[in-house]
């Protein structure tokens, strides 16, 4: 596999790690939208679920806030995992489980 493709997978896997370690904090992108976004190194990272003729996949974009120019990361399974990790964080699944399991009946 090309080193170029490896680099993108490494980058997205790193974003998964940062998300799971709560070093990257995601937020819902807006009402009525399934998108999530976060800020990193002066740029905006945006995750969206795309429905392309029934083919549903996540899309990760990098946006330059000043100019609004957007660049899209190449798709890999790591993007799916990043979407899951970001949703896990935004929904607060960990906190919910802690509260549920620690609650005495």
């Amino acid at each position, binding site marked *: 596999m090309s080193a170029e493709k490896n680099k993108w997978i*490494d980058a997205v*896997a790193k974003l*998964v790690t940062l998300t799971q370690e709560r070093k990257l904090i995601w937020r819902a992108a807006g009402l009525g939208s399934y998108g999530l976004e976060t800020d990193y190194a002066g740029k905006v990272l945006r995750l969206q679920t795309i429905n392309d003729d029934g083919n549903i996949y996540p899309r990760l974009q990098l946006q330059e806030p000043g100019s609004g120019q957007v660049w899209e990361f190449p798709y*890999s399974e790591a993007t799916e*995992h990043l979407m*899951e990790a970001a949703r896990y964080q935004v929904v607060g699944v*960990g906190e919910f489980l802690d509260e549920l399991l620690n609650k005495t009946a």
Partner: protein
Amino acid sequence: MTRLSSVIYSVLTREGFAVLANVFSIASFIVSIFVLWNIRKLRNAYMLRARGPALIKDLSKAASNLSRFMNEYADFMPQVSEEMGRVGVKLRSLKRKLGGAPRRSVKRVLSYVDHCEVSVQNEEQVRLVYGELLKVIEELKDNQKDLEWET
């Protein structure tokens, strides 16, 4: 004409015939090795075409599960360990069917998996295995696409 007849004569002598027989014997040995090697290659290609997609799908599922468990690594260590075991079995099965660069990549990830002990201190190592697993899955998917064109 005389030269040709002398060549035929030398072949027909006992020594000449023995040399010729030796040459054919060595040549047939080489051809046999080549045929065996090709049969093995064909068998592996067939096995990979038949079993490859399911094994890659299983690996993808394992990577997805690992990623989920890594959300709360400390709480899910037994599950991470179980998933790593499953990844090792699938990679070993794939390794036997692969050749060339994909085989080398699978071997590399397999060595990471075998040396990775799931513990609180080793979270970084587990994450390294997860990252390498993602890369090898992409490589195997590409290899599977190439196979569709080859056979």
